[in-house]
């Protein structure tokens, strides 16, 4: 069976196109880490990555990828290498155990994210002012809630993030109207029951 069924084929004459597969070196785009705020009262959490040429485009892709199906109140994107990653600790041991708390702050605002359980996403823990990522952890130990063991922390300069603004939020206003994306919109039982009742009558 060699008959082509895809209607694009008749239009594009696809088999005649010169196709030799990739010949150039990888055109891999850099990756951006995406943090999403599901609802106003929540906290930002890491949802995954997108590939993009810059952080604005990363936001566009992230909007499609991570706020298409659920409610959304905000997105942050940041290029992967701009995140400083602490070592992972073992359970019940906090990475802050090895950090000297510092009350002395710096000038640069940093965002801190914590992972509290293996397998769970990193969540936004707060903002501190510091002079380096390492210093930011020292300040965080004194300033943020680190009462539960933190298994891993991500630290990044606030200026490296692309953040959605208040006005941007209206792009999510129509999400609740798109009920055709919801399982609950597809009820079939009544039709099956009517069909079975009809069949029982005739047989």
């Amino acid at each position, binding site marked *: 069976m060699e008959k082509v*069924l*895809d209607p694009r084929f008749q239009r594009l004459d696809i*088999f005649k196109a010169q196709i030799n597969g990739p010949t150039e070196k990888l*055109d891999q785009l*850099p990756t951006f880490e995406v943090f999403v705020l599901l609802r106003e009262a929540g906290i930002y959490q890491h949802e995954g990555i997108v590939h993009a040429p810059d952080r604005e*485009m990363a936001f566009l892709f992230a909007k499609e990828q991570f706020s298409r199906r659920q409610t959304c109140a905000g997105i942050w994107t940041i290029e992967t290498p701009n995140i400083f990653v602490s070592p992972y600790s073992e359970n019940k041991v906090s990475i802050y155990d090895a950090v000297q708390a510092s009350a002395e702050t710096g000038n640069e605002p940093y965002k801190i994210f914590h992972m509290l359980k293996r397998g769970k996403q990193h969540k936004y823990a707060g903002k501190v002012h510091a002079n380096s990522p390492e210093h930011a952890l020292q300040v965080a130990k004194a300033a943020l809630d680190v009462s539960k063991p933190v298994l*891993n922390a991500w630290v990044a300069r606030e200026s490296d993030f692309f953040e959605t603004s208040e006005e941007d939020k209206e792009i999510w206003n129509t999400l609740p109207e798109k009920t055709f*994306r919801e399982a609950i919109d597809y009820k079939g039982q009544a039709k099956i029951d009517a069909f079975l009742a009809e069949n029982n009558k005739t047989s």
Partner: protein
Amino acid sequence: MYGGGNTFEKIKAKDPNEEDPILLAEFEARIERGEKIEPTDWMPDLYRAQLIRMIEQHAHSEIIGALPEGTWITRAPGFKRKLALMAKVQDEVGHAQLLYSAAETLGKPREAMIDDLISGKSKYSNIFNYPAFTWADSAFISWLVDAGAIVNQVANSRGSYGPYSRALERICIEESFHLKFGHHCVIHLATGTPAQRKMMQEAINRWWHPMMHFFGPPDKMSVHTDTLMKWKVKILTNDETRQQWLDMYVPKVWELGLTIPDNKLRKNEETGKWEYTEPDWEEFKRVINGDGPCNKERLAVRKTAEERGRWVRKAILAKDAHYVTPLA
């Protein structure tokens, strides 16, 4: 959407017996305790290699799986069906991106995976090498192929690798709409006019055998299977997933007064297992290795999209951008 990740090539990885015994013991103890493995943790070579292969094949299946349904968007009956199918196909492509990202955390760039798909080096779910002739075929895919995928994905989301589990959790939530949408389409045809019922029945007749292939051949227990199950890479055997799917969906097909083209198919009430005619596993191997009705067409569409999109990627590529492995 997802097919069982079957290939017949031996995996090239260091034997677990050659790994550092102390690191290996710590790794296994972590999994034993029910903890997830994260990208920067030490892991055996076989674990990494098998996960890359599995997740990559899963991602390719999402991309290629979007093709047979994608062509039905413009021809779907009614505006709402068009909207829903478009949303579903977009979800499938989104799932591929989630999965490529999860595989990337193990060290293989997305671009390399796409190259391997196009060159035919890495496989995708075999079922998408069959054609969707009618709207009923598309409905079969949305309902029953996605149902099979969900059985696989729910099982795999209990696996030990953190990024893969997280991706699968999101995917499973999104798939629930696909399943209900597909069922809705099938109910509509099955309770409709005689012509609609006939169209649905013919689709089931066409897709039954590929669907039985979908879960893969009966498992031959090898040393690797044991190890991969212990490491929670493989959660259920092929037969277990097939049985689960039969149990959940055969009664729903029968309920609609439709038949299944296998007169041996029945549930053995004593064993609680479904009995069926073994599908032709030689055909399965032949199609996986390239000789199916649509293999050429599917890859040609992918290759053409790659070729035609190249100038866009070139135009947007920042010169000083550099790629690193994503974090999670």
